[in-house]
């Protein structure tokens, strides 16, 4: 029978396909093929709709704010102008904090930093859609969850400086926060691991007949890790009460999102192979993020199981303080990004509503920066990584186990503590 097969027509030799981004250094960015639906165009499914009922939503983009700065369509939610102003403030705080911390890192006050520029709406708007008791399992690029959740910024800075008031006692690299009381799980340096943990946490809530939900976070690049598969399998099988967030900021260090996405139309569509309702949202539209997050959270809390949300956004800065993106992507790409800047867009909306002005904004920027600088000064008064007031070496031996076993006691003594 092998002969039948060999009677196929002559076939050209195979080639390896390696996807390539549109814009490398020196190139002119071109987003003309990037389809952006009109704000208000995407329907809002019922809470109990199935994945099959909303397949299209994994290939579209839910948007609320239109070019004129108006909120339109079925996803307009109940945020009051005051709520929106608070949201704007959260994002501005996050950006000011980023600015200061990047500078602090450059000044040698800490070893490392990772900023959020361009992605502020994602975590800031998401957090306000959660309830107390819910738990985020974040990556390093969702500090907005803490800021919007009211976590004291000084603690964040103390952590970044690894100073004596660092809640994590200097044990973790900068920005790998942990804040249980604020619904913020300890960030791992290993990408992806938190995704399946979040599902386990959500399963536990269901096992205990609780009403808390979990929110998992992952970047476009890290969706390639096996933990994400585990998470989808478990969430799908046990209908875990969870919102599974994928922040597609187009880049994973120097690697464009096409390497992780491959032939899939979108990251959201990954959910289709698991029967998980999956949607995409404009990650730079505060109102859209809030509305989608609230809907997905309510789905989870109501027992309708997991939802996948892909946030379409753009990493406007470098990957981290160790990274210089000009080596691998066109310098004009950020400015050409068609979904704009999240702060700018919410500002425009507030102005359109008549609840804000350009002047007020300039003033607010200065206020927010002063506030952040003030907090920074307080944190630095306690210490920075290089100012010498570090947590004791003794502390390194603590907390490996609840009770220190004999061999660690001996080692601690040997270390002179």
């Amino acid at each position, binding site marked *: 029978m092998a002969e039948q097969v060999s009677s196929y027509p002559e076939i050209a030799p195979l080639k390896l396909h390696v996807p390539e981004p549109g814009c490398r250094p020196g190139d002119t960015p071109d987003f003309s093929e990037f389809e952006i639906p009109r704000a208000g165009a995407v329907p809002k499914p019922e809470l109990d709709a199935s994945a099959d009922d909303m397949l299209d939503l994994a290939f579209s983009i839910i948007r609320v704010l239109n070019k004129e700065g108006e909120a339109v369509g079925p996803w307009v939610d109940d945020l009051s102008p005051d709520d929106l102003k608070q949201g704007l403030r959260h994002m501005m705080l996050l950006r000011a904090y980023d600015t200061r911390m990047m500078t602090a890192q450059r000044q040698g006050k800490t070893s490392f930093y990772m900023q959020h520029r361009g992605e502020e709406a994602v975590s800031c708007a998401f957090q306000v859609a959660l309830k107390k008791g819910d738990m985020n399992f974040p990556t390093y690029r969702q500090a907005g969850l803490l800021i919007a959740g009211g976590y004291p910024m000084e603690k964040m800075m103390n952590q970044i400086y690894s100073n004596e008031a660092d*809640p994590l006692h200097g044990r973790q690299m900068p920005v790998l926060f942990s804040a249980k009381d604020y619904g913020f799980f300890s960030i791992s340096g290993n990408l992806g691991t938190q995704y399946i943990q979040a599902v386990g946490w959500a399963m536990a809530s269901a096992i205990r007949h609780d009403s808390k939900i979990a929110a998992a976070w992952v970047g476009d690049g890290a969706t390639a890790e096996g933990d994400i598969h585990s998470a989808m399998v478990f969430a799908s099988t046990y209908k875990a009460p969870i919102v599974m967030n994928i922040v597609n900021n187009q880049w994973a260090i120097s690697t464009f999102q096409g390497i992780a996405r491959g032939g899939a139309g979108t990251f959201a569509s990954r959910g289709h192979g698991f029967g998980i309702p999956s949607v995409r949202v404009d990650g730079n539209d505060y109102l859209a993020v809030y509305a989608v997050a609230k809907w997905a959270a309510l789905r989870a809390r109501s027992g309708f199981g997991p939802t996948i949300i892909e946030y379409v956004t753009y990493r406007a800065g470098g990957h981290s303080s160790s990274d210089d993106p000009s080596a691998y992507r066109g310098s004009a790409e950020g400015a050409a990004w068609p979904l704009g800047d999240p702060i700018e867009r919410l500002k425009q909306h507030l102005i359109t509503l008549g609840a804000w002005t350009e002047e007020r904004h300039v003033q607010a920027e200065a206020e927010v920066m002063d506030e952040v600088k003030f907090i920074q000064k307080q944190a630095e008064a306690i210490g920075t990584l290089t100012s010498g007031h570090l947590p004791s070496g003794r502390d390194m031996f603590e907390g490996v186990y609840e009770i220190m076993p004999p061999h660690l006691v001996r080692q601690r003594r040997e270390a002179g503590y």
Partner: protein
Amino acid sequence: MVQMTMISAIQNAHDLAMEKDDRVVVYGEDVGFFGGVFRCTAGLQEKYGKNRCFDAPISENGIVGSAIGMAAYGLRPVIEIQFADYMYPAYDQIVSEAARIRHRSNGDFTCPMVIRMPCGGGIFGGQTHSQSPEALLTHVAGLKTVMPSNPVDAKGLLLAAIEDPDPVIFLEPKRLYNGPFDGHHEKPIVSWSKHELGAVEEDYYVTPLGKAAIRRSGEAVTILSYGTMVYVAEAAVEETGVDAEIIDLRTLVPLDLETIETSIKKTGRCVIVHEATKTSGFGAELAALVQEELFYHLEAPVARVTGWDTPYPHAQEWDYFPSPQRLGRKIIETLEN
């Protein structure tokens, strides 16, 4: 007292733990309806419902990762990896997560969970149903590693592990499930019903982690063993007629160094036996420690008898398995040194 196999003792420990503490949940591959391929969780789903005992997808990574999330929530997951050889897909979750969460979050989150894994050979399981990966776990700060050798300990140690506030790896030598085994595969199989450590207290009790047991007192040489090797040591001692002291470590981390030291100060000689491959096996740590702490008490080098540095073979199983003869030769050699 009730006669139990190691399987029924482990099943019983699950049962009592689930009864006592409704935060205890049990899952793994084939663990729910069927009660586990070795039946260590038999009857639990029927008794406690699918909410607390259920089947998991074939994803060790998912099983461990989800258990970490449950532990962080406040549950006490007790999970089964069907064979220790299959822990590797979950290794990142074990090493980078379970072991680290308390420390990295400064106690904000903790990870009280038990990962059970049948380990060891002697059942013609070939290279992927026979491994003893304890050294890959003892190297990981933040984990505790336990390996019982009999029904009484299996029950008490498992209950202690479930109570423990930190992640515990619980390795079960599967060749001991139904009876003690000393390496004499040509002899008839012995059952726990004929062994004093098969008589198990029915009530809840714990055997503290970190305490070794002396299985035989002796003056001539100290044998450090755990799991199946305890019985291999007994057979070797009987066959050589050497007055050896046999220590069953039971917990590898934290290690009961005191019991080891007391014994070797007395005997001046030490032979270590384990089933895992030699290089970087746990025997290396034991030998290093013993000579570090007791150099001037030693009259001969600390010797190791272990599985060879090869995959665990199928047909040559008994060439691989550390036999009483092999151990006996090393004991004699150590005495003659």
